[in-house]
C-alpha cells in the first residue's frame, strides 16, 4: 500500500470543489454582516453614552472569550428553543446555513469592531476639525477624510479576521452543514475511508489557496490605499525619484 496516492488525491479534488461555491456563499454573507455590524459596534463603543458603550463592550468581550464551536452550539441549539418557548414558532427546520452565517457574523463583527475602533482612534482629531472648518459635515468628513485613512490602518487586522472567518466556516460540519468539510466527510464515507489522508490534504490545499487569494486581495487594497496617501513605500519608482529631486 502506498502512503499517499496521487491519483486518489487528484480524483477527490473535483468532487470537493463542488461545494466551494457554498462555502464562499457562507463566507460572503457572514462578511457582509460582520463588517456592517462591526462598524456599528465600533461606532457604539465610541459614543459618549456610557450605557451603550458598556453594553457593547460587554457583548464584544463575551463573544471574544467564547470558542467558535461553543458559540455555534449555543445559537444552533439555543435559539430554536427560545423561539418555540416565547413565540411558539418552530425554527429547528430552518436551514443550518442560517445558524452558521449568524454565528460567524456574531463572531466576526465582535472582533472586527475592535480593529475598526482602534484604527479610528489612530486618526488625529485635527483631521475632522479641519474637515469641519472647511465646511464639511461630520458625515462628509468621516466618509472623505477619516474613513479612508482609518481603513488603511485597519486593513491588515481586518484581513486576518476575514481569513479567520473563512477558516471558521469549516466548523459548520459539526451541526451538519454540508460545506467543503461536510462534503469531504461524505466523500470519505462513499469511498469506504480508503483515502482519508489524500482527501484531507486536498481539502487543506483548497483552504490554503483561498486564504492566499484573500490575503493577496487585501494586500492589493492596502497598497492602493497607501498610494492614495502618498506613502513612499507604495509609490512607483519613477514617482519616488521625482519627489526626491524636486525636494533638493
Amino acid at each position: 500500500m502506498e502512503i499517499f496516492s496521487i491519483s486518489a488525491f487528484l480524483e477527490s479534488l473535483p468532487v470537493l470543489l463542488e461545494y466551494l461555491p457554498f462555502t464562499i456563499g457562507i463566507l460572503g454573507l457572514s462578511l457582509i454582516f460582520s463588517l456592517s455590524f462591526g462598524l456599528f459596534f465600533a461606532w457604539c463603543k465610541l459614543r459618549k453614552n456610557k450605557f451603550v458603550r458598556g453594553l457593547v463592550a460587554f457583548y464584544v468581550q463575551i463573544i471574544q472569550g467564547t470558542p467558535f464551536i461553543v458559540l455555534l452550539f449555543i445559537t444552533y441549539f439555543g435559539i430554536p428553543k427560545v423561539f418555540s418557548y416565547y413565540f411558539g414558532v418552530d425554527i429547528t427546520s430552518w436551514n443550518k446555513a442560517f445558524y452558521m452565517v449568524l454565528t460567524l457574523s456574531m463572531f466576526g463583527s465582535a472582533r472586527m469592531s475592535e480593529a475598526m475602533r482602534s484604527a479610528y482612534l489612530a486618526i488625529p482629531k485635527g483631521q475632522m476639525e479641519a474637515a469641519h472648518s472647511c465646511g464639511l459635515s461630520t458625515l462628509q468628513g468621516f466618509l472623505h477624510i477619516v474613513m479612508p485613512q482609518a481603513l488603511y490602518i485597519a486593513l491588515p487586522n481586518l484581513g486576518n479576521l476575514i481569513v479567520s472567518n473563512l477558516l471558521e466556516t469549516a466548523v459548520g460540519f459539526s451541526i451538519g452543514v454540508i460545506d467543503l468539510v461536510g462534503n469531504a466527510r461524505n466523500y470519505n464515507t462513499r469511498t469506504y475511508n480508503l483515502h482519508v489522508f489524500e482527501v484531507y490534504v486536498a481539502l487543506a490545499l483548497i483552504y490554503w489557496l483561498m486564504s492566499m487569494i484573500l490575503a493577496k486581495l487585501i494586500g492589493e487594497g492596502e497598497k492602493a490605499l497607501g498610494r492614495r496617501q502618498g506613502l513612499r513605500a507604495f509609490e512607483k519608482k519613477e514617482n519616488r525619484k521625482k519627489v526626491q529631486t524636486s525636494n533638493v
Partner: protein
Amino acid sequence: MIEVRNVKKAFGDNEILKGVDITVQKGDVVVILGPSGSGKTTLLRCINFLEKADEGQMTIGDMSIDFKTVKKKEIKAIREKSGFVFQNYCLFNNKTALENVMIGLTIGRKVPKDQARETAMKMLDRVGLSERYDYYPSQLSGGQQQRVGIARAIALNPEVVLFDEPTSALDPELIGEVLEVMKELARDGITMIVVTHEMSFARDVANHVIFMDGGVIAEEGTPEDIFDHPQNERTKQFLKRILREDEEKQHQI
C-alpha cells in the same frame, strides 16, 4: 467686520475665557499675544466652533449668533465665513495639495469640479506651491504643508482667516516662508486674526495687538502702544521675557 462679545468658555471647573470682547474691521490684521494658557487658542477655536463657547454673541458680516442658542445651520454658515489655519497644519493626509484646497469647495459648497479646480490652483499659486499641486502632505515639508493649509483656508473666500500659532510647529528655517505668505495676504487686504509668538510679525504687520492673560484681555492697542509703551504690568513682564528669549535664540544661532 467681526464682533465678538463677552465670550465665556470653561472646561469643567477650569475657566479659560472669562468674557472676551474683540472687534475686527475689514482688512484688519489683529495679533493676539499672551502666555500659554491665557485662552488665545480657545478664543480662536470658539470663533470657528471647533470648541463650543458657553456664552457670548458674535457677528460676522451680516450674520449674528448667540453662542448659547446657536443652531447647526448657523454654525455651518459661520464656518463658511471664516477660514482656519492650524498649528500642526492638519492637511488631509489622503488628499493631494490640490484636493486639500478643493474639497471645501466641491463637497462643502457644491462648487462644480472644474471651477473649484481653477480656484484651488489660483490659491496654490498665491502661496507659491502650484507646481506641487499633486503632492501628498507626506511629501511636503512643514513650511509647504502650512502654506497649503493657508491656501485651503483662503480658497473659501472667507470674511476672516484665523491663524492658530501657524509657525509654532515649524523648524526655524521654515518659519520665514510662511510669514512671507501671511504678509502678502495682509497686503492684499485679507482680514486676519493671528495667534502667534512671532513678535516681529506682530510689530510689522498687525494694525491691532491684543494681549491676553488669564482668560481676559489685559491690554490692547496699536503695535506701538503695546510694544513701546505697555501700560499693564503683566504685558511688560511678558514682552520682556519673550524678547529675552528671542535674543537668546539669536545668540545660539
